[in-house]
């Protein structure tokens, strides 16, 4: 099962990188999303997969009876998902506003901050 998940992680990250290499903002956004999910899945796999019960202590007991799944990777993933969600929603709004104000979603055409046709610097003091 670990092997299957490792291959899936690889696929996710490859797809994310492929989409990020595109010039269109929307594809880059999708790429970030897929890449982030791949990384989350990787953390999940890194915490070792078990078929044990969920890491919840039943009422009345001080600790769980028998083996439980490792709760730490799940906490890490939850944090990462929340943060990734916040970042993604910001980037989504940003891409939308950029599309409205710059009238393009192609990063090659976004040259306002770095003008492509800037003249050479003066050659003397």
């Amino acid at each position, binding site marked *: 099962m670990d092997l299957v998940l490792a291959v899936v992680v690889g696929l996710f990250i490859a797809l994310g990188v492929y989409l990020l290499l595109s010039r269109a903002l929307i594809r880059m956004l999708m790429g970030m999303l897929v890449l982030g999910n791949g990384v989350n899945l990787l953390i999940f796999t890194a915490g070792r997969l078990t078929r044990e019960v*969920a890491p*919840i*202590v039943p*009422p009345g007991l001080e600790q769980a009876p028998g083996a439980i799944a490792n709760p730490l990777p799940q906490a890490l993933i*939850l944090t990462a998902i*929340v943060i990734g969600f*916040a970042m993604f*929603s*910001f980037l*989504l*709004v940003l891409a*939308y*506003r950029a599309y*409205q104000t710059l009238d393009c979603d192609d990063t090659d055409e976004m040259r306002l901050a770095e003008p492509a046709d800037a003249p050479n610097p003066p050659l003397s003091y």
Partner: protein
Amino acid sequence: MNTVIFRTIAPLIVGTMLVFSVYICLRGHNEPGGGFIGGLIAASAIAVLGMSSGRDAARRALRFDPIAIAAAGVLLAASSGLLSLFTGSAFMTSIWLYLELGETTVPLSTPMFFDIGVYLVVLGAISAIGLGLETDDGEGL
């Protein structure tokens, strides 16, 4: 989306979702649930309201600025961690208070206030984003 059926049913759905979100938030300490998922449910309720009766109605139903709600959540969560300063233990150490109310015992704790803080952060932040995206100009963030 703007059908009579949806507009009639929406307040019911919204009310149920909000009550359910509080339930999920409060049961979260020892069972599946918690502030994050509760806040998400509450924010979805606001989104449903926004779809049925428009952005302005949803904005009015929140009463406060959604960003201010999120900020209040951060404040509540941080303060709940600070309380353990007075018990001589580390930051974010939980403090429990068992209130005897007649036949039941109500456990009050700092993790619960932390969770309520998270609930408010998620509700406020996601409502702000959702309401911001529902307008044409994307204003609101």
